[in-house]
């Protein structure tokens, strides 16, 4: 528990919550990163020769990148950057995350932050399922396969 950082965790959480409320209050959208990212690449959005109400997604992603980038630029990283994690595992993880969030229509932000806030039954269940399988897969990776860095 010595790595526990409650103050920055809550502060960051509050900012993420404000972001989600703003996005819904201003333009009526759910702040789910997988949904926004996927929608940004969705060929189905291209109709009648124009992108259908799609640019806001790119602006959101640009903001996301600048927000995190700006913070890192101003404040030196407080953690050691992970090095040497096997690339095939990263690719596999990425593919599973991609398939899973698409099939389950959401990720930690869409189901976790926005879904729970809307008291959506689907989201609450999805969060319980993915936290459970994530804990299981981390356990197997670290304690059975010895991927503990």
């Amino acid at each position: 528990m010595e790595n526990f950082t409650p103050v920055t965790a809550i502060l960051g959480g509050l900012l993420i919550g404000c972001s989600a409320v703003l996005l819904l209050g201003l333009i009526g959208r759910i702040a789910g990163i997988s949904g926004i990212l996927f929608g940004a690449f969705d060929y189905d959005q291209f109709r009648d020769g124009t992108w259908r109400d799609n640019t806001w997604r790119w602006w959101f992603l640009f903001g996301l990148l600048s927000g995190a980038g700006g913070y890192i630029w101003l404040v030196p990283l407080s953690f050691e950057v992970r090095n040497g994690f096997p690339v095939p595992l990263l690719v596999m993880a990425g593919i599973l995350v991609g398939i899973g969030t698409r099939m389950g229509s959401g990720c930690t932000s869409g189901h976790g932050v926005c879904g729970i806030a809307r008291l959506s039954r689907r989201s609450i269940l999805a969060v319980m399922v993915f936290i459970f399988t994530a804990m299981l897969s981390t356990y197997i990776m670290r304690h059975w396969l010895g991927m503990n860095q």
Partner: protein
Amino acid sequence: MKTNISAMFSGLLFGLGLAISQMINPEKVLAFLDITGNWDPSLMLVLAGAVGVSLGGYHLVLQQPHPLFKGKFYLPTRHDIDLPLLLGAGIFGVGWGIAGYCPGKPCCRRARWVSRWRPDRSRRRGSRPSRSTAPSSVSGWAFTGSRELKRSR
């Protein structure tokens, strides 16, 4: 234009939140998921903080007839629990648990490229791993997307 600026501002806050709470560090995420190890409950507090704000905020916002700059709210309409939801959430969890990346983080980690010119060498190393997850996430989506398209034809 208002729409885009709102989206960018919201994204900015989101990215800032992820960076401040260190959720851009996959090891921090894995430390939460690894309950039998040296458990770090920070992620739970991030989620709690975010849900705390959005629970109240959404309630107030959804009492309005429509969002400030748009004619309607774009909310998910489904309420049924189906297999793709459970299976998808399960698969996502497995992938998340392997490397500690969920969709927002590889995007944010790319932000490290932005700050690369800083003359501190130690900070430059190791930004590579994030390169592989974002494209493969997108290819995962593309894969299921094309499957869906086939099914609907």
